């Protein structure tokens, strides 16, 4: 019997059942298919992309290419016949990932002794000996070319940086950093809507921002001929790549 009763006779509420979160299932739900596997739209024979994919899978079996996005800080060691130790290590933030198939590239940027340096590496080149991911963070944009016109502090990374530890099943964190820019003129007019940049803190007057919106093309998102739905293609390629890597 309860001493301080509620007055109303409450039915016995059983305690809530414990929800078992299976961490292994969570890990499997997160899929990452490298963007160079997805074939572009065109009239080429799919057999050509199949042959390229076989070569890419073969290279990935021998050499580990880690999962990385634009905005990660990477260290790449390449074989260089003219260097002292015959190898060359470069650390930088990944600005863009381009190309499809075996010719896929990524551009790393860093500021060394007040000089901005950008190097474009090919993912599947045999001269690359190691790729290490030092810091994992996605940014708000797919293309960080505006870092060229931003203050140099945003592109400097320590060459002897230690890799930041990270658990496997966590999602890749998104860094919502708003970058401050050098005074205009810039290499491209980043305030225009065609670049669709969310990661810059524009300190321009309102009139300039309004004038930039004149170049917006709001009909583009409704254009059905430009749609390229890659979900089904990605499923097939994901299965193919996984089977190839397991063998």
């Amino acid at each position, binding site marked *: 019997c309860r001493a301080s009763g509620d007055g109303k006779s409450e039915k016995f509420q059983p305690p809530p059942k414990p929800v078992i979160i299976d961490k292994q299932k969570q890990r499997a739900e997160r899929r990452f298919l490298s963007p160079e596997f997805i074939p572009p739209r*065109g*009239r*080429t*024979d799919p*057999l*050509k992309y199949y*042959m*390229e994919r076989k*070569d890419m899978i*073969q*290279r990935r079996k*021998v*050499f580990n290419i880690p999962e990385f996005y634009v905005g990660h800080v990477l260290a790449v060691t390449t*074989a*260089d*016949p003219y260097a002292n130790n*015959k*190898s060359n290590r470069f650390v930088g933030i990944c600005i863009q990932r381009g190309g499809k*198939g*075996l*010719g896929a590239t990524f551009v790393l940027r860093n500021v060394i002794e007040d000089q901005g340096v950008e190097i474009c590496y*090919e993912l*599947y*080149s*045999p*001269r*690359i*000996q190691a790729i290490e991911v030092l810091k994992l963070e996605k940014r708000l944009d797919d293309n960080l070319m505006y870092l060229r016109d931003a203050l140099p502090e945003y592109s400097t990374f320590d060459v002897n940086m230690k890799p930041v530890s990270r658990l496997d099943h966590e999602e890749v964190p998104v860094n919502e950093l708003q970058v401050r820019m050098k005074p205009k003129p810039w290499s491209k007019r980043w305030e225009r809507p065609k670049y669709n940049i969310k990661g810059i803190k524009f300190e321009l007057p309102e009139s300039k921002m309004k004038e930039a919106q004149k170049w917006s093309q709001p009909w583009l998102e409704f254009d059905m001929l430009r749609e390229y739905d890659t979900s089904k293609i990605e499923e097939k390629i994901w299965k193919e790549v996984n089977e190839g890597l397991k063998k």
Partner: protein
Amino acid sequence: MMPIWTKSGKRHAVTLLKVQDCHVLRYVSKEESGGKTAKLLVGGKNVSPFSKPEAAHQIFKEAGVPRKQKVTTFNVTDDAIIKPGTPLYAAHFRPGQFVDVTAKTIGKGFQGVMKRWGFKGQPASHGQTKTHRRPGAISTNKASKVYRGKKMPGKMGNIYRTSFGLKVWRINTIHDIIYVNGSVPGHTNCLVKVRDSQLPTCKECNKNPPFPTFFADGDEKLPEDLFDEEMFQFTDPSVTYT
């Protein structure tokens, strides 16, 4: 087109050519054709027989082969004659050989003199009246005529052109694909004629081909991929310099 790396780390671009249902159709002897050597008619890529009259199917019925989209002739010496009806495969070529590739170039339609022949045209400003992309003068006063073959505007492209001395880097025997160095005339998925190179510098490299051709029902069992010696295969570890 695809990138390819050598064992020293150099990068080359490569075109993939697929050998699609090629059969030998007919043997024409030296006296019949009136040329210096005997000829072999070869057809490629099966196509439906219903879009042409029965008379055009004569050659294909004699060889016992479905109708082909393209028929080409190859000049052949007497010891390299093949029986009509034999299929031809990509393994006819070997990595390290040199090859000439002929195809119809991409048609650009009626084009002006600047695009077709590379003329410089006239300046955009400084008083030019309605003359920016015109040919200018077409002959001299003394000639008092225009020479035959004068470069003028006209239909550009859609003609047969050959790229000579292309190296074969790799051959896939299952899908019948030849990886040929550099670019090849023609648009993607167009029909192309591949022939042993006739350049004088390449005569030594084409010394040991499968002669007269590679027969699939023979005793030779080739591996899935044949690579050139200098090519970097993706099963090897990364390139290092010593």
